[in-house]
C-alpha cells in the first residue's frame, strides 16, 4: 500500500508497488491521483500531452501500469519518497509555480479554519483580499 501526496491531496493506493526510486501504479490510479492519463501518444493532462521519451517507453509503461517516479522526473517536477517506499510526494515544478504567479491570477487553495471547516480563496471573489501569512513560531 502506498500513500500519494499530490496537488490533488492525499490518496492511498492498495495496488501500488514502490521499489527504490520506482513506483508502479495502475494508469487509472495515476489519473485519479494526478490528473495525468495514458494515451497512445504519451501521457496527457487535459489538452497537454507529453510524448514518451524516445526508446524509454518500456521503462515507463507496462501492462496498464505506469512508473510514476521516472515519469515525474521526466516532466522535470520534484518527487520524494520515504525510505520504505510507502509514502510518495509528487510535487509541482518551479516553472509551473512561476508561470502561475506571473499570470497574476492568485493561486487558489483549500485550507481548514480552526474548527476544521474548509475554505478556499476563490470563495472570496468579488472582494478585495489581504492574504497574509503568520505563524506561532
Amino acid at each position, binding site marked *: 500500500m502506498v500513500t500519494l501526496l499530490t496537488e490533488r491531496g492525499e490518496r492511498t493506493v492498495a495496488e501500488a508497488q514502490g521499489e527504490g526510486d520506482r513506483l508502479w501504479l495502475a494508469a487509472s490510479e495515476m489519473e485519479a491521483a494526478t490528473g495525468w492519463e495514458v494515451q497512445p501518444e504519451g501521457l496527457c493532462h487535459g489538452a497537454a500531452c507529453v510524448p514518451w521519451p524516445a526508446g524509454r517507453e518500456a521503462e515507463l509503461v507496462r501492462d496498464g501500469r505506469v512508473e510514476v517516479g521516472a515519469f515525474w522526473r521526466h516532466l522535470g517536477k520534484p518527487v520524494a519518497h*520515504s525510505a520504505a517506499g510507502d509514502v510518495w510526494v509528487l510535487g509541482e515544478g518551479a516553472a509551473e509555480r512561476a508561470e502561475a504567479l506571473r499570470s497574476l491570477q492568485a493561486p487558489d487553495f483549500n485550507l481548514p479554519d*480552526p474548527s476544521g471547516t474548509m475554505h478556499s480563496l476563490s470563495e472570496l471573489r468579488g472582494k478585495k483580499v489581504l492574504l497574509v501569512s503568520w505563524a506561532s513560531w
Partner: protein
Amino acid sequence: MWQALYEELRDQNFTVVAVAMDSRPADPLPWIEAARPTYLTLIDRDHRLADLYNMVNVPEAVWIDEDGRIVRPPEPAGSYEGFRRMNRQTKEMPEEAVRLTAQAKATYVAAIRDWVRNGPRSEHALDARRAFAHVKAPDDDAARAHVAFRLGQYLIRAGRSDEGRRWLAEASRLHPESWCIWRQQAGVNEAGLASLPEFWERVDALGDKRYYPAIDMHGMP
C-alpha cells in the same frame, strides 16, 4: 494585528485572510483565542501557501483584487527588521529602530486604506506590468524543498519522527533563504518562539542582507 483594519474597512468590500503556517495545528490556537479575529483564519500545516506563493517568511502579504488578480505580489506585510538592533541582554530596542518599525507599519496600513478606497487608481495597486516585475519566482531547489517538507510533515504526523525530521532538514538545506522552513523545524524556546541562539546566529549571518526584504512603497524605511 489586522483586526482593527478589518473592522474599519470591512464595509468597503474588503476582507482579510490570515494563514497560520504551523505544522502543529494546536500551536496557533492560543494566539487566535487571544486576538479573536472576525476575519477568516486558516491553518496551513504543510506550508501550502509558501509553496504556491513562493513565500519565505512571515508575515508576508498579497493584495488580491475583486477578480482574483494579484495587484501586489508577496512581500513583507509592512514588517521592518528593527528587532535586529535590539539589545539582546535587556531586550531593549533603540528609539530609532522603534520609530522605523512603526513607520513601516503605518505606511503599509495607509497604503491598504488607499487601495480599498481607490482600487486600481491607487498608486499602491500595481498595474499588470509592474506586478509581473515584482513577482519573485521559485527556483528548482525551492520546489524540491517544498516536496521534502511535505514528506517530512507527513512522516512526523505518522509517528516516524526521525525520518521526518531528516526530510525537514533536507528541505531547509535545499531552500536556505526560507525562514518558514528553518524556523518550523528549529527548536523553540519556553515561549514557543524559534528565537534560540541558532536563530540569532542565522540572522547575524545575513550581514547586509535584509531579514525582511525592502518593500517597494513610497515612505518605507
